[in-house]
């Protein structure tokens, strides 16, 4: 009974903390503070995933939601500020709020109504709803892996993952075709602490990614988590100024970017020809096929996320060569 009480207190505190951080993140006037609060919010979200028995989601959130999104936002803010100092207009500072406008009053009335309605719907849901968990449990044997989340991601609903890899690629194509962002080369060398830490961390991160990929077959982990850890290693290397050479930025990078989606597409077409269903992996080979799909997906996800962080700065690399 006492552990129940402690659990309830922990969950209530976590919930309140999430709401408070989200409110401060969206309301505090300083954008830099807002981004830091958002990263803290992401870390608390990871804790919430653990409390909800979703360790796979927690790993993805900690690496992507808190880490990579935060890094992307910080770079964007720094570039906004450099635009602001170059031009005369204010890009990185918000205009002063001009009191509450009529639309805002309407919103303040309508939003609580929507929230109450949503809350009422949630509380009226039946307490027991097995969903698809029984279906997954019965077919888990045939999936080739024993972690149900990996089985869903790469076997039962493999087309989700295929489309998701294509969405990632499309986002990168969008960033590239917009010419990316204003290039700004760091002229000063990276601080010694960052440089040393990166040199120590990158091999560990690569090892962690490989471990997460392998362990994903039977425990929390998998291609997404491993890919984002790889991307984090790439971001660290970019931060200390280790830009890849222009020769590597052209064809080799593009090959890695399409490796994951291409492998997925090939397996999708082959399974459609042999098994008469898209991505229906034959049970006797499913384990090996999932490992192949996950390895290529991990490389592509890592490369795409790191390239998204690099953004349009690839153009400057071309000019340097």
């Amino acid at each position, binding site marked *: 009974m006492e552990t129940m009480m402690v*659990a309830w207190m922990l*969950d209530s505190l976590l919930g309140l903390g*999430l*709401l408070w951080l*989200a409110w401060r*993140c*969206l309301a505090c006037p300083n*954008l830099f503070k807002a981004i830091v609060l*958002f990263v803290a*919010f992401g870390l608390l*979200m990871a804790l*919430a995933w653990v*409390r*909800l*028995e*979703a360790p*796979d*989601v927690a790993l*993805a959130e900690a690496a*992507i*939601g808190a880490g990579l999104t935060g890094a*992307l936002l910080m770079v*964007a*803010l720094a570039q*906004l500020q450099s635009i602001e100092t170059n031009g005369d*207009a204010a890009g*990185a500072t*918000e*205009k002063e709020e001009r009191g509450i406008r009529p*639309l805002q009053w309407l*919103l303040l009335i309508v*939003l609580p109504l929507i*929230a109450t309605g949503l809350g009422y719907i*949630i509380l009226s849901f039946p*307490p027991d*709803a*097995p*969903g698809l*968990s029984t279906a*997954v449990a019965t077919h888990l044997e045939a999936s080739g892996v024993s972690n149900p*989340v990996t089985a*869903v991601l790469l076997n039962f*609903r493999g087309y*989700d*993952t295929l489309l*998701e890899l294509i*969405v*990632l690629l499309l*986002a*990168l194509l*969008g960033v590239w075709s917009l*010419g990316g*962002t*204003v290039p700004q080369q760091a002229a000063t060398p990276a601080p010694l602490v960052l440089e040393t830490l990166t040199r120590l961390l990158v091999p560990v991160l690569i090892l962690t990614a490989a471990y997460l990929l392998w362990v994903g077959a039977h425990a929390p982990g998998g291609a*997404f988590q491993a890919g*984002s850890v790889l991307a984090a290693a790439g971001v660290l290397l970019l931060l200390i100024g280790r830009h890849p050479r222009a020769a590597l930025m052209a064809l080799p990078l593009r090959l890695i970017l399409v490796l994951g989606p291409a492998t997925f597409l090939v397996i999708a077409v082959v399974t459609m020809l042999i098994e008469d269903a898209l991505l229906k992996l034959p049970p006797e080979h499913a384990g090996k096929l999932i490992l192949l799909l996950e390895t290529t997906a991990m490389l592509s*996800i890592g490369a795409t*996320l790191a390239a*998204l962080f690099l*953004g349009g700065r690839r153009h400057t690399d071309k000019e340097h060569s």
Partner: protein
Amino acid sequence: MSIAHLYALVSVGLISLGLYALIVHAHLLRKILAINVMGSGIFLLLVALAQRTGTALPDPVPHAMVITGIVVAVSATALALTLMLKLSAQTGCAELPDKEDE
């Protein structure tokens, strides 16, 4: 009321906060943050409701969907940030114009 319901109610709060900030704030970086908070709220709702299986193990299908969603959210954020920077490089301002000002 169970822990799943508690987190589901928190997610409703997050969605409302995000929606409010998305509409009220003019600065685009703030709007991107607001969309991310809203997205986190929706992910939390999906995973919280996946808890109600009645057994010790939660439903893995929403978990898989949320992992996919997190990766899609970060790529959409990267694209949105690039669009914002492009806009502010051209107009010198990262805010949407206010109709009342014109």
